[in-house]
């Protein structure tokens, strides 16, 4: 059973097969993990480089199919990925400590990417919402915007309103159950990426 929920243009949600292969760098060598003991979290959350040069070099990239690649891998190995981009087979993963500007610097027109995914390591990291909002409203991204990582049903309504239109539910949870949470509220107060504040939406007088 697929873990991927997708919203159609009309807002209808369904569980669909995932056509994308996620490219994940190999785990860091034991040595470097040990050296960073106790500091790993700090590095990631303060925006330090997540992957080492060794990890990036050793990342295996499938030769065929649609691939979803971390921004840092693209930055380091874009020459070999260029043809995949041209073929519409490249999607980029942005981590929550990376910026939409960094992505923009790589792709002048973000809409050459059929898919951007934002990876959230812990569900409580609310930066994913601002990133989604920025990508949609500031950078004009129109294609599929996917939440991946620690994605749970109780945050889905916020993800949706922050501009995400697909959600890869964490492997140990039911995507089927999660569908219900996309419609927790029928008439939210404030605007979201796709709507305006309620007082501009309906006549409350």
């Amino acid at each position, binding site marked *: 059973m697929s873990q991927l929920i997708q919203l159609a243009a009309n807002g209808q949600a369904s569980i669909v097969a995932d056509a994308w292969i996620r490219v994940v760098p190999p785990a860091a060598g034991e040595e470097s993990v040990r050296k960073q003991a106790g500091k790993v979290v700090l590095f990631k*959350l303060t925006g330090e480089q997540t992957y080492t040069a060794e990890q990036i070099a050793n990342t295996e990239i499938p030769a065929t199919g649609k691939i979803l690649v971390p921004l840092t891998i693209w930055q380091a190995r874009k020459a070999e990925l260029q043809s995949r981009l041209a073929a519409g087979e490249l999607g980029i993963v942005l981590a929550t400590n990376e910026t939409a500007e960094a992505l923009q610097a790589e792709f002048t027109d973000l809409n050459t990417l059929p898919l951007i995914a934002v990876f959230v390591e812990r569900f409580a990291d609310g*930066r994913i919402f601002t990133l989604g909002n920025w990508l949609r409203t500031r950078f004009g991204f129109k294609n599929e915007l996917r939440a991946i990582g620690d994605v749970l049903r109780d945050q889905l309504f916020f993800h949706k309103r922050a501009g995400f239109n697909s959600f890869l539910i964490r492997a140990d949870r039911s995507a089927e159950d999660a569908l219900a949470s996309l419609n927790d*509220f029928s008439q939210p107060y*404030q605007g979201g990426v796709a709507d305006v*504040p309620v007082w501009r939406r309906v006549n409350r007088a």
Partner: protein
Amino acid sequence: MYKYDPIDQQIVNERVAQYRDQTRRYLAGELTDEEYRPLRLQNGLYIQRHAPMLRIAVPYGLISSKQLRKLGDIAQKYDRGYGHFSTRQNLQLNWPKLEDTPEILAELATVEMHAIQTSGNCIRNITTDQFAGIAPDEIIDPRAIAEIMRQWSTFHPEFALLPRKFKIAVSGTEKDRAIVQAHDIGLEFYKDVQGQMAIKVWVGGGLGRTPILGTVIREHLEWQHVLSYCEAVIRVYNIHGRRDNAYKARIKILVKALGIEEFKRQVEEEWAHLKDGPLTITQNELDRVAKYFEPMPYKTLPAHDASFDAAVASNPAFAAWVKRCVQPHRVPGYRAVTLSLKPHGKAPGDITSEQMHVVADLADAYSFGELRSSHEQNLILADVQVSDLFAVWEKAREAGLATPNIGLLTDIICCPGGDFCSLANAKSIPIAEAIQMQFDNLDYLYEIGDLELNISGCMNACGHHHVGHIGILGVDKDGSEWYQVTVGGKQGNDASIGAVIGPSFSAEEMPGVVQRLIEVYVRERQDEERFIDTVRRLGVAPFKAHVYAEKETA
């Protein structure tokens, strides 16, 4: 006060359903503790020492008699027959069962109440002056904007999981009573040179572990842009605030780290994208909400009432109460009445179900059916006719709600502390009670005069100890409870953070320590000086000397 329309009602109803299902899944083991935690917190539910604690929202401290009766009934049915008013003007229940909380929320929804975002890393209940709308020194009544902001912040999709909690206060008076400088965002309303409603924006204030007073980030903000501007501030914070260390995660730390100029630059850059967009508040929406906060249908009354004057002249107890518990009103012939939730020897801010019913009845009979809660943890009848004051006093006194100590040493601001709160390092309520009993002499209290004494059971500073004229902080030393004392803190326009006088004290020593601080004040004060004025004139040294000199010879 604001009344729900079908949209507001639907949102709280849907919230009850959502939370009911989340709690069901948690109890069924489908959600881990860690996953359920932010969900329950954003609904005001803490897991506490003895039982969960449920914090119910009282938006900007405004509550109707009907709502207060419902709170009384809920406290009776699901708790131990009492509640506790907090320093964010909310009501806390100390003993509900977790399984009952969805039902409590469903009952609250029937009277247009909820517990949304009373805790957790999100935008919290917006607080304001308890005399909003009636204070003689008020320039702008900020409640309509506060309500518009309450709606905007409720389930805000982008700010649902901030680095840390986010507190906003609004105030529209000459004398600040909402401690706007001790908030993540403080909004000070005023009339600009064109006579238009404008806002001075403070940012990066907060008490807690690192007490910092806010800095002005914008001197003049047109009211139409308050949502877009706050959104820009919080967006910069959401992205750049620290998430690796909860103690360094508040916006104040980010503002200090970047410097106000750089922080402001980033906010203004963000705001340039948002300004004049859909977040711009329309006159139409302001008018729609403002009509709920129009002045009450006051009678035309003389400024003086002969029977009231006679009662004051002949009844010293009533006169004492009038002096401390009756506050001025902008309309002639009306006054505000503060019902003291600080009787000596009881937990500050606590109120029983029976008292809630008495207060609700008083509000119906004498104050248009409405009440306010203050961050000083008292209740206010805002619109009482002068000729009714004596009757209100008699009924309040009968219910134990007329201790004439408002603004005095025993009107202690106090968090629930170690008796209830699992975060606390030390107990706070017994300290408050012991100090109240030490000073259980009204003549002596009047002799001491205006004095604010605030107690927090831990660094989180729910009892606002940093801004108390005397502040007491519970600390943990090798597993036992000690108390650190500060003097010279103050709320208001000239707010300040108190200075620590020296090594901490045991619980038993605390009443004596306060006593000695007072002795220095009584000895040194000049003319009409209040305690805080004497501290500011002399500094901490003489207070420190006297407190610790006694300690050494003892």
